[in-house]
């Protein structure tokens, strides 16, 4: 059975800034906390693809292009990470246009 498609689009909170380190981590800064989030390279890759246009499906597909992994596993990991970002109010969801 094919995976259900996920056409939701994650959008970063406007007040966030981030920086990519020389060692490919991403440091996200939320000045309203203030709080900082340090992402490892996989999570950083997802974060950098959150551009307000890509859907969850798009992000998952891009990762699968670069990783040899089960689609179901990648989909689950991406969703888990995005849910964590939502819990921290770092992203919001919108429907694809």
């Amino acid at each position, binding site marked *: 059975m094919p995976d259900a498609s996920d056409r939701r689009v994650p959008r970063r909170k406007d007040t966030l800034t981030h920086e990519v*380190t020389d*060692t490919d*981590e991403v440091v996200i*800064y939320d000045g309203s906390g203030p709080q*900082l989030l*340090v992402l*490892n390279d996989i999570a950083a890759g997802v974060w950098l693809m959150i551009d307000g246009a890509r859907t969850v499906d798009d992000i998952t597909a891009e990762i699968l292009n670069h990783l040899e992994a089960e689609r179901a596993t990648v989909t689950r990991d991406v969703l888990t990470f995005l849910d964590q970002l939502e819990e921290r109010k770092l992203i919001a969801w919108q429907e694809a246009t």
Partner: protein
Amino acid sequence: MNATGYFLPDDWILWHSEGLLEATKLSSGEHIRIEATSEHDPLNSELPASVWDSLARFEPLLGQLREQLQEQALQPLTRETVLRGSGWKQLFVELTAKCNEQCVHCYAESSPARTEALAWPELSKVLEDAKALDFDLVQLTGGDPLISPHCIQAVEFAAEIGIPQVEIYTNGLALRGKTYDRLRELGPSFAFSFYSHCPETHDAITQTPGSHARTARAIRRAVDDGLNVRVGVVSMEKNQHDASKTHEYLLGLGVRDASIAFDQMRDVGRGDAAPIEADTRAAGVQTAGVESARPRNFGGSAAVSYDGQVYPCIFSRHLPLGSIHDTSLDAILTSADPIAPQHKKLLQARARWGEKLSCWECQARSVLLDGNCNA
């Protein structure tokens, strides 16, 4: 998730759990929250420099934290580290509850009728513990410490065992005769309590006729003899209107400007029975600012009361730590009891520290030790 608390000199409090670090700089109230995997945890000594650089670019505070982590060892947050802070600075020792005055605001509720006092064996042990803990300063207070039969003995003993500095906090009424002659030889510092240039106002606060003239005379003599003298003026409704004239008067006695400090009455002891009016508290009192301008870095203090009870400070009587009748001062102050995470309460309290009279160090200790900011 259980967090472990750490103290980092000068005044950092860190709460750390897997994936999360909350860092608060107590003096400024700045706070930062960092989430990361264990690999990128700021307390992981292997954290890449590039990540630290990035963190510090976003938050200069983290640049300071990084420097501190490089220079200082993290100390688990225990009752001892909370009390000691950046190092043991001042131990208050109340030799006696008895006083030859009966000030209307006295935090210790001292009076001529009180009889509680520290006996010499326990007092000498307290001084030995103060030396062992490496306190910078022991202040002998009370009541009036000069009334205690052990005051001179305590100053002599402190010098003998090498306590760096002893200060006698007194109204000066008993600073005369052989007592004065011996103390002048020993050379402790003196801190005098004084209330007004106006004898009637001063005597009304001390409830002791003639006390103004006697205290002024004691101050003048100690200054003239080259002793180290400072004067503390507690401001309250009765005397705050003439603070400027009192300041001038003290300068006229020869007290150095930098050694005159005005402080607000605290709602402790008899001060609690005369609540501080909000408008009285807010009114501007001229101050030379010895206390208020003193750089603070969460230095450690403790107080031994005349009944043997130990507190973090003379004003923190809501936080009894133990009694020297049951165990030693050393054991009371060096307890390794861990401190439960209190960062939310600490931040809530920190936002209101300026509204209280007590110093931020006492307020922080109050939150850390009992979860409430009652200081």
